């Protein structure tokens, strides 16, 4: 008892280790959590004290969050925040399998600024035993019935028959060396840390080579289900959407773009193993101003010099010119030689002497470079722009691609993933997915909603 109390006292000084589950309307908060010294955002629920549920989750994501919660080792707790103070219950409300909020004893926070302190408090209470560990949310049942079936009760007949422990054994399939070896079906997401939150992929892997990829849930939710509870646009998304219908200061738009790219860069660096440098970039993203762009230029130089980053991204995730042409636009297409950029159509940008950043290569390295160059360019534009306003032409170049067109770039990228990732090794696949900068909220958003927003 004495030892445990002493350990708890010692542990009280550590940052609270959180596994973050990020839903809709949380994009103003989620990226910055890593900057907080009181929190440590961890990659695995097994290493977490607190499950952070941020924003509003749909059915599938809530169900997955319950699974993540149950994987956390006790003592564990849940802390939730949602933008309008309501329980972040599932949307759409009329979904096929409505789920209720699974966490019975979560701590709710209304003010996002309170999240770190509340996390620390919750963690301290849990570790010192003043608060009970939160109970399992899902029943401990097998995914398929198998017990007692077959001659040995293993779920079927024969050595590979049946579904022991509720799952089929790995099946054989051709591999790249002309052999026929075990293939494992793995569902990754929606909270796998290197992937964008909400992305779910069914992947067949042999060793660490990806043989087949499919997307289990459609990327877009039917609009009629969304009428009651569609997530509203927050943060930069609101700003870019506002530019669809009304003039917005160019400086604001461009600073938001630069910030988005730097936040992306911080995450990409983290996934590449440079966590500390990623944190530096994240801090820069929060503090940078167009008048003082030198730190961003320094960053760009440092990245260009870093050979290890080049090595990990060169030639990876090649997007061909024809694939790029099929995209609505955006940095991914521009990194593959497709020069479309909605800003070229805007006379306000024309007056500022805007020309899009285009690279011909189409690999992950080119996408990194395009984004960094665009961030630098955006800051320069913002400084030159002064008070000038955008022209609402019905199409806005968002950070991931054009907004206001027929479909979002993120949705197009998600549909492109299965073809793109097949044959890659896991590490390259992750590099590719990260370099595409898919925004799942944008991908899930039917473009009608954006159009409706324009009308209102």
């Amino acid at each position: 008892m004495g030892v445990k109390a002493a350990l708890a006292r010692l542990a009280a000084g550590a940052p609270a280790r959180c596994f973050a589950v990020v839903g809709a309307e949380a994009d103003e908060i989620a990226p910055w959590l890593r900057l907080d010294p009181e929190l440590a955002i961890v990659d695995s629920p097994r290493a977490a004290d607190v499950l952070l549920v941020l924003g509003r989750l749909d059915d599938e994501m809530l169900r997955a969050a319950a699974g993540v919660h149950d994987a956390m080792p006790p003592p564990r707790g849940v802390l939730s925040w949602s933008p309008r103070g309501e329980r972040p219950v599932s949307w759409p409300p009329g979904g096929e399998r409505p789920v209720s909020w699974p966490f019975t004893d979560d701590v709710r926070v209304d003010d996002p600024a309170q999240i770190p302190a509340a996390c620390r408090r919750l963690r301290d209470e849990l570790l010192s035993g003043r608060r009970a560990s939160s109970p399992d949310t899902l029943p401990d049942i097998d995914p398929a019935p198998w017990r007692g079936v077959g001659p040995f009760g293993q779920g079927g007949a024969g050595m590979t028959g049946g579904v022991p422990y509720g799952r089929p054994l790995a099946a054989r399939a051709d591999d790249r060396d002309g052999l026929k070896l075990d293939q494992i079906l793995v569902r990754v997401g929606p909270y796998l840390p290197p992937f964008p939150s909400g992305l779910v992929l069914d992947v067949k892997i042999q060793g660490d080579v990806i043989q087949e990829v499919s997307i289990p849930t459609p990327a877009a939710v039917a609009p009629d289900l969304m009428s009651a509870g569609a997530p509203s646009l927050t943060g930069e998304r609101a700003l870019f959407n506002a530019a669809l219908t009304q003039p917005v200061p160019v400086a604001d738009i461009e600073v938001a773009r630069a910030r988005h790219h730097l936040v992306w860069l911080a995450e990409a660096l983290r996934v590449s193993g440079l966590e500390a440098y990623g944190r530096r970039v994240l801090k820069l993203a929060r503090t940078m101003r167009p008048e003082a762009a030198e730190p961003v230029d320094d960053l760009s130089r440092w990245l260009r010099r870093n050979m290890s980053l080049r090595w990990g991204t060169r030639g990876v995730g090649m997007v061909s010119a024809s694939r790029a042409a099929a995209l609505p636009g955006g940095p991914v297409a521009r990194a593959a030689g497709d020069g479309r950029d909605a800003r070229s159509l805007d006379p306000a940008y024309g007056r500022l002497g805007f020309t899009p950043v285009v690279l011909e290569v189409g690999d992950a390295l080119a996408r990194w470079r395009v984004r960094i160059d665009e961030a630098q360019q955006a800051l320069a534009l913002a400084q030159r722009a002064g008070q000038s306003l955008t022209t609402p032409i019905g199409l806005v170049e968002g950070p991931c691609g054009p907004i206001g067109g027929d479909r979002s770039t993120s949705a197009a990228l998600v549909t492109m993933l299965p073809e793109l990732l097949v044959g890659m090794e896991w590490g390259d696949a992750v590099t590719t997915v990260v370099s595409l900068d898919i925004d799942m909220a944008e991908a899930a958003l039917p473009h009608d909603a954006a159009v409706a927003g324009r009308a209102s």
Partner: protein
Amino acid sequence: MILNVTFWAFSALAVFSGWRVFRADSMVRAAYWLLVSFAAVGIILVLLRAEFLGLILILMMGGEMTIMAVFMVAFMMNPAGLNPMTMVHRNSVAIVAGVVSFLAVAALGLFARFPVARAPEGVDPTRKLGVELLGNSMLVFQTAGVTLLAAMIAAIAISSARGRYGDADQGSVEPDQMVTAPAGDVAAAAAHDPAPVTSPGAHQ
């Protein structure tokens, strides 16, 4: 005394883990039980002052058993032993053969008369082995090296996917053999293999 206890402990471990190899359900466990057996023998060798050989045995087997484990995982249908499995044939014959060979070899060890001449203290056996390898037994040593090289080349030749006459899994056969092979065999090969059999005329 301590030496004796250690020796018996590692002997027991070597035999026990050897037996577990063929009793483990999980293939990875089977491979690593074998590694334990090798490591125990390696430590006994170290106790016998054949330090270099014992350590090299452990070093070598660490890598080999890991490769073996991966092979088992790759090729077996049920590598983790999630389903109960016994993959044995002629079990009783094998048991008899095992017991008989144990008794024969053990009898040889117990009843044959060997000269007693312990390795003298104070001489570095590793140095002597090195001098021997590169001195009197140079030819043996070199032969072993060449044998290993040949084995490497042969292993690549056997296991590579592309043979001289096409892909190995398409039943690549030398064109000459295809002509002279009995008709039945070619037909059987064709029936067995979906790949089109190249007609001899195509090579004219």
